[in-house]
């Protein structure tokens, strides 16, 4: 660091938001845990309500916490060094998200490369196939599981292809919005950012349509349709949750833009939302290749 004069680093005073967030997470975990444990008998526990209370509380926390941060930032309390902390923090957070998806991609690749062929006798597993699953034939997508559950594979053309184009376009529009912000073209910024949000919403709508197709009787592609359905729904589902979160983040940024926030030099929150958006886009491209095409 070559600063001649040291900028003071803002250490916030005590805050009530973290403990509220901790209680919220506690309610979410207890609620979800109870709800899932009593899936067959949802009325037996109030788990669902506890879960909803937790979600409401965490939304309240996020608003309150970020409101503090925005107020401090607008009051000029943050130094360049603080901005760096936020940027680095966000980057490592996104890296941790990458590793979360890696676990599920790992499961997908393991199933395709090892477990499914092994069940059909590949490697030194001839006896496994002959004794346990004599009627099983390894294919991918696995449309007939060893225990005989049948399903249909989701093609890559149609909705998934449209979704790919939507998301790729939205990454470009998000970038244009960023460029407009840096060039202080507020009108264009609103246009590109608004367009990005719309593309995100349309993507989610298409994803919903695709799931409806999957669950319809012609396809019978369910979450529990063997390893193909498992990986398909968990990967696209978690990705969809991230798109939802990213869309909300971008929407909040849009509202803040309309309120006149952000300057060409000081717009960490916008940058973070846009990084996050590019991240979900990249995950989708990998997902499109490994889940749909290959």
């Amino acid at each position, binding site marked *: *660091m070559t600063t001649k004069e*040291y900028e*003071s*680093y803002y*250490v*916030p*005073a*005590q*805050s*009530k*938001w*973290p*403990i509220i*967030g*901790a209680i919220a*997470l*506690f309610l979410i*975990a*207890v609620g*979800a*845990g*109870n709800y*899932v*444990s009593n*899936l067959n008998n949802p009325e037996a526990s109030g788990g669902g309500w506890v879960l909803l209370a937790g979600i409401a509380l965490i939304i309240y926390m996020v608003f309150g916490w970020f409101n503090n941060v925005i107020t401090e930032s607008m009051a000029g*309390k943050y130094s360049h*060094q603080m901005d760096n*902390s*936020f940027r*680095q*923090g966000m980057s*490592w*957070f996104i890296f*941790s*998200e*990458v*590793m*979360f*998806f*890696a*676990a*599920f991609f*790992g*499961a997908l690749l*393991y*199933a395709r490369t*090892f*477990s*499914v062929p092994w069940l059909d006798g590949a490697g030194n597993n001839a006896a496994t196939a002959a004794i*346990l*699953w004599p009627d099983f034939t390894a294919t991918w997508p*696995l449309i007939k*599981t*060893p*225990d005989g559950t049948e399903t249909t594979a989701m093609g890559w053309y149609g909705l998934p292809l449209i979704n790919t184009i939507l998301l790729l376009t939205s990454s470009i529009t998000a970038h244009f919005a960023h460029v407009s912000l840096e060039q202080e073209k507020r009108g264009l910024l609103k246009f590109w950012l608004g367009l990005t949000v719309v593309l995100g919403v349309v993507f989610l709508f298409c994803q919903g349509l695709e799931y409806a197709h999957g669950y319809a009787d012609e396809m019978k592609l369910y979450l*529990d349709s063997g*390893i*193909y359905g*498992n990986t398909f729904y*968990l990967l696209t589902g978690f990705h969809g949750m991230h798109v939802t979160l990213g869309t909300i983040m971008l929407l909040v940024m849009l509202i803040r833009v309309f309120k006149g926030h952000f300057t060409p030099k000081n717009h960490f929150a916008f940058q973070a939302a846009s990084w996050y958006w590019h991240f979900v886009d990249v995950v989708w491209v990998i997902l499109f290749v490994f889940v749909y095409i290959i």
Partner: protein
Amino acid sequence: MTTDVINDQSEHDPHDGDHHDHKMTGLKRWLYTTNHKDIGSMYLWFSFIMFLTGGVMALVIRAELFQPGLQIIEPDFFNQMTTVHGLIMVFGAIMPAFTGLANWMLPMMVGAPDMALPRLNNWSFWILPFAFAILLSTFFLESGAPNFGWTFYAPLSTTYSNGSTALFVFAVHIMGISSIMGAINIVVTIMNMRAPGMTYMKMPLFVWTFFITAYLLIAVMPVLAGTVTMVLTDTYFGTSFFDAAGGGDPVMFQHIFWFFGHPEVYIMILPAFGIVSTTIPAFARKPLFGYSSMVYATASIAFLSFIVWAHHMFTTGMPLFGELFFMYCTMLIAVPTGVKVFNWAATMWRGSISFETPMLFSIAFVILFTIGGFSGLMLAMTPVDFQYHDTYFVVAHFHYVLVTGALFSIFAGAYYWLPKWTGYMYNDTLSKWHFWCSLVSVNLLFFPMHFLGLAGMPRRIPDYALQFADFNKWVSIGGFAFGLSQLIFLVLVIKCIRGGDKAPAKPWDGAEGLEWTVPSPAPYHTFETPPKID
């Protein structure tokens, strides 16, 4: 490293004046705090409470194993004890203790006013007690607590699980969030908050080891989250990730779990390396031998930790190539670890050594951790691992690295910095009692387990064949002695907080580092303007 504090602590920038005198009193201070020292203290106390809780479970296990046959508890409850003991000690005792040390020491060691993201820091801590409240609450369920071992292998945790799996999964999710956020804070603090002039290769080794550990955490805790999520969907939503009937594979669980789990064990030992690399030079009154080789060795161990996971799975019927690959990679880890052990020995060589309690624990660490390392090498050899797998030899191995390794280093660190934290010297006699009682009992506790394992006693069983009775008796006696010895530490810490001989700013004449340039106890806010490093 020579350091020179040029700023006067009473001189403040008018900008940050508004966060002074905000030290609330009572419960609110601890609930709302953003101060790294408060949060560090809470982490340390929490980990100690968890250590005693998990310890009581270990004593239940040892009481049952005192003699053959079923005496005290049912086998299912025994399994719950082994499971929750493991989960608590890993996620509730060792990891939070290291995070607590990081919180207390890192900002002072790099000359920063606080952790980089103080509010996030509070959140990382406060979600932990809630996570463990959920985990422990499962004991009051009709089904009882998780009983599938801390490694929650499928299908034990899926098809054959009791009703506690969902709560277990969500508790682990919260622990993971806590670790990831804490690790991000550590990484950002180290990358962004170092005082001017403190280049990476001037950082104390303690800082380096936490830096690398934090990277491991960010990389693998999300994988654990993914693993427990798949266990959840397999158990409750009919997926078959770990079920061959649907095209999955129970062995896949082990691959994904240990991809998290192996880096995890280094998460629990690399900070220990950092601590003893701080204490040994201080009491040998010589700079750390081979500083840069220590940094590179730590980084190498971290890298290798990602490509050795399947050595936990030699008996699962992996292809031969896999067995060989993971065997050789695992043995490679002995090289950087050996570098470290030799460097500690070389640091002490011809040093002017004095044997204060932190040094006693550090020396015990070097010797006993090395024993754990050697048994690790034995386990790394595929052909012989077929004999040792899932026996008490494995239990002996990982307790040597985790108890006489990680835990002893935490004691070394605690004794080393207690004067800085409390402003008082600890009671030396009590600390010696704590050390010698712990040292003798821990070896009585864990050393005979090697023999039990080699003779074929399986782990995680409530009953055993008669020929193992004598060793088990001694092991149980050692266990109770070790557990009771830790109460000495509790008394000592409470006494040290309440008073004692006043500690000077630098009570150890050989100690190096910025933390010794501030008074003892360390003021509530330190280094609001950074010190100058030459």
